[in-house]
């Protein structure tokens, strides 16, 4: 079994009294696309910064590609095989596009000139123009190019589609999927739930610094259900306190349940209680996310 690309053990970071990240036990498997979801301030960027040695954990430890994140030299070595694009798509304004590429490529033996040329052409980036004079969209594309012109072992992206138009987003997802097909492990955070649902294999939801959900998307698709009943006379809610039921709502003769698993047991109970209408519907990732971060 290949060891996880990212593995953390009780990783905690506190700025003052409130922890930004608490007791995080993350396990991101290699050769998979894992999405990292969470509200703003949930601790996603802090976690990534701890993984890359920019922030020191208050407690706990972790490894990325088998190397300890807390050791400066090991962290430096792991960064050779990790491509990272921060949320603000950082670039040096005083460099031209060409200088930026020459600068970045000099640090990584996994740089692929063919990918670089292809992306330069597709993005139509002006080689001799200074970065500070580029439009926001162009800058986003250049920042992404610096990561996608490589074949790293791990690709970490923080809100990669921010600043891109729909065509750009589609192209980004194709690039992501192409990298994954080459064996690159991808770990990305995004607010675009629709994107995540299309390409991710696995999803981790961070809520107030804690890992609230950690599951494969296929599992979620198979187990989460919304079940709507119509009863001639409503039975008490406690009849439906079955394992897996996360939320119950009633309105008149209707009873609506949100279940993370055991949908069939719920349907059977409804049947036994005399429901005249049973409707079972799948639940999208957006609703799963909203329900997960609501329960505090």
């Amino acid at each position, binding site marked *: 079994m290949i060891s996880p690309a990212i593995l953390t053990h009780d990783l905690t970071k506190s700025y003052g009294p409130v922890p930004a990240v608490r007791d995080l036990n993350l396990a991101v498997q290699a050769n998979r696309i894992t999405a990292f979801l969470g509200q703003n301030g949930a601790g996603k960027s802090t976690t990534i910064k701890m993984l890359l040695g920019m922030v020191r954990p208050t407690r706990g430890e972790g490894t990325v590609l088998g190397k300890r994140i807390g050791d400066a030299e090991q962290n430096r070595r792991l960064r050779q095989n990790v491509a990272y694009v921060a949320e603000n798509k950082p670039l040096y304004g005083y460099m031209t596009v060409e200088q930026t590429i020459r600068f970045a490529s000099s640090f990584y033996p996994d740089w692929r000139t063919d990918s670089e040329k292809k992306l330069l052409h597709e993005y139509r980036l002006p080689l001799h123009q200074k970065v500070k004079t580029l439009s926001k969209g162009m800058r986003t594309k250049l920042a992404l190019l610096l990561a996608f012109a490589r074949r790293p072992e791990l690709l970490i992206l923080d809100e990669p589609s921010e600043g891109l138009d729909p065509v750009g987003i*589609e192209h980004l997802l194709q690039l992501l999927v192409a990298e994954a097909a080459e064996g690159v492990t991808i770990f990305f955070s995004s607010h675009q739930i629709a994107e995540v649902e299309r390409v991710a294999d696995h999803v981790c939801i961070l809520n107030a610094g804690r890992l609230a959900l950690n599951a494969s998307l296929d599992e979620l698709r198979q187990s989460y259900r919304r079940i709507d009943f119509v009863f001639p006379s409503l039975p008490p809610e406690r009849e439906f306190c079955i394992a897996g039921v996360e939320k119950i709502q009633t309105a008149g003769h209707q009873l609506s349940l949100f279940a993370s698993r055991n949908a069939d047991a719920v349907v059977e109970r409804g049947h036994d209680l005399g429901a005249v209408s049973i409707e079972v519907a799948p639940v999208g990732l957006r609703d799963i996310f909203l329900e997960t971060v609501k329960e505090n």
Partner: protein
Amino acid sequence: MFFKLNPTAGQPLYLQLMQQIRHAAETGALQDGDQLPGIRTLAEELVVSPNTIVKAYSELEHDGLVELRHGSGAFITTKRRMRSLKDHVQVARRRLSKLIEQLRDEGLLDDEIKRAFEAELLHSPEFVRKR
């Protein structure tokens, strides 16, 4: 080959892909010996994780519909077992069309019929056995 995967349909994407490939093989859109698209190509075209494609192809190989030739790709093979399955499907479809006609005569709308089928299908096999 035109495949369309629905991320919000409540069904794993690899299962949807498997069904669509099976359907294509049954209706003849894919014939014995035809090559399926490469993993990377199909992943980029559908914009889904390559693991979805990999899992679909390997499950289909397990079921005997597909042969994975090392270095060349995935090819449809309709073995004897699959041909009899094709007959089963044809019989099932004839029965289904009769049932649907009946339900329509009883006054059910197509949408209602569809929802009823989906609700029944989403139950796990264990539940069905319990009943």
